[in-house]
């Protein structure tokens, strides 16, 4: 019976992301306490909160960079709580990192190629891709999509900061993502680069949902339909962007109080 239910849930009735009672302790410090969140397929949500609120820890638990101390994580109905990161990624989960984690000794196109290859067969292939290889072509079009064609053969270590951030996003969009976690994608970007980022995010196909951690409210509230506020490792408020923005408690805690 349960297998029927699982199959049903996998075909769309389940939430894209379903966190139940996630707690993460670092020694005596509780980085996350009893966090419960549901995100529908295709939903776009911002996670806001001051530094130390537990936002990045939440991402790390979802992608399996480390495991939660307790609680369960379901991805499109499947319990992935104890899966290693690569198994989660192969199921369509993606993420970007706050500080770019790129392959600096490789070229831009090779970085993206690795990401495309990582979610397809032939990861261990000893044969070079042939001319017209589909994965290679996918990598090329992704490089173009994030406006990096001009530097496709440059080593990533030589790229400007903004370009590295764009590449960071390209790596997260490789293959067929079903759900993406963006960790402060706008941090350190110029105003022009920020509007380019908003363009990239709003241009994503509708079926791709995401959660975005962003300090810049101008970016965050333009690209999401719901907001979760976190404070001291707990969920503080949830609602539509306008509700959160107008909430006096939120203003008091986050907008008014600064976030230094």
């Amino acid at each position: 019976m349960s297998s029927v239910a699982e199959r049903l849930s996998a075909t769309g009735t389940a939430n894209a992301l379903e966190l139940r009672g996630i707690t993460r302790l670092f020694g005596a410090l509780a980085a996350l306490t009893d966090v419960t969140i549901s995100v529908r397929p295709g939903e776009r949500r911002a996670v806001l909160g001051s530094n130390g609120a537990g936002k990045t820890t939440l991402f790390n638990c979802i992608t399996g960079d480390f495991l939660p101390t307790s609680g369960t994580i379901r991805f499109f109905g499947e319990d992935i709580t104890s899966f290693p990161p690569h198994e989660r990624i192969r199921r369509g989960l993606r993420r970007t990192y706050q500080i770019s984690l790129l392959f600096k000794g490789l070229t831009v196109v090779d970085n993206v190629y690795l990401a495309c290859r990582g979610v397809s067969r032939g990861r261990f292939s000893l044969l070079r891709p042939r001319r017209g290889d589909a994965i290679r072509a996918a990598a090329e079009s992704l490089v173009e999509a994030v406006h990096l064609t001009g530097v496709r053969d440059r080593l990533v270590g030589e790229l400007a900061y903004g370009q590295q951030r764009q590449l960071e996003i390209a790596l997260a969009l490789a293959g067929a993502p079903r759900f993406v976690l963006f960790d402060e994608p706008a941090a350190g970007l110029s105003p022009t680069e920020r509007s380019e980022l908003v363009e990239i995010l709003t241009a994503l196909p509708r079926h791709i949902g995401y959660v975005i951690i962003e300090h810049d409210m101008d970016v965050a509230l333009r690209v999401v339909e719901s907001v979760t506020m976190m404070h001291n490792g707990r969920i503080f408020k949830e609602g539509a962007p306008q509700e959160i923005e107008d909430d006096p408690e939120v203003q008091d805690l986050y907008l008014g109080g600064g976030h230094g």
Partner: protein
Amino acid sequence: MTDIPVPAPAAAAAPSASGLPAWLSAVHPAWWILGFLLLFMPAMAGDFVLVQIFGWSFILGMIALSLMFLGGYGGMVSLAQMTIAALAGYMAAVFGTSSVAEISLGLPWWIAVPIALSIATLFGVVVGALAVRTAGIYTIMITLAISAAFFYFALQNYEIFNGQRGFNGIRAPVAFGVDWRAPVPFYYLTLALAAASYLFVVYVGRAPFGLALQGIRDNARRMAAIGYNVTAHRIAAYAVASFIAGVAGILLTWQNGQISPGTAGIPAVIDILVIAVVGGLGHPIGPFLGALLYALLRTFALDVFSAFGFESTRFNLLVGVAFLVVVLASPDGLVGLWRRWRDRRRPAAKPSGGHR
């Protein structure tokens, strides 16, 4: 990601302007000269130079190449490569023919060699499985510990490894009508296998497996976050490297005609690291350059030293100083030295990307 137009096949098959296939005309002229020199070396050099300098360099170069594959591509410095090579040599002696008739099984080479290579590769996988969860200095320590353990085990085990004496009377076989123990055939045998390993490592460096390995070197955590099983990839790299080291280990045993614990002693283990670092971990040619320098110094340092009137027993001082000079002048070895020289000659040239 679907229905991406494939470039017209005509473009793929079209020969370049010079009439040669594209991959052939892309080979730098220097490689043609080097290839020509190496192919016709037996016409110019005597047996001693062929086997003791070049043959030995090719063999040590292959062992160091297996370290370069792990270290340069994968960021894993393994001190177990000489040990894995020695295990292959030992197994070739145990399953093949040697003077120690009470241990050697006397199987023909075409059975003994594959068995020896399989055991060496398997051992490499075990070493890898133990080592890959560590990083940096800890990988070095754990592989060094394995090497030290193997040395003492071989020294004290008489049932399989014949203790201190090891095996002698191991010879390259007579096969396909050629006596491979003769200097000229043995030279070509080592040259062919060294060239094959070199080309394999260069080729794989641009294939998904090699690219992924370099990705793991640059950022293992991100590799997991784009779908790679980093542990499995690293262990697979150990398997590939151990196979190369194993081939070299068998050649080394054939060249020396013997194998004993000293072959895998700590000094020999360190020598492979020195060869790889002095040659340069940045490109697969580095280990061979390092090995040639090592073989030349090891062979001629004694003569040079006595010629200057120093006490000849201290000739290792010259070897050490020579390596020190290279590493001080160029932290990325002879390969780095050559790259900087080339870049200085062509200052306008674009920096090259990755391993090619």
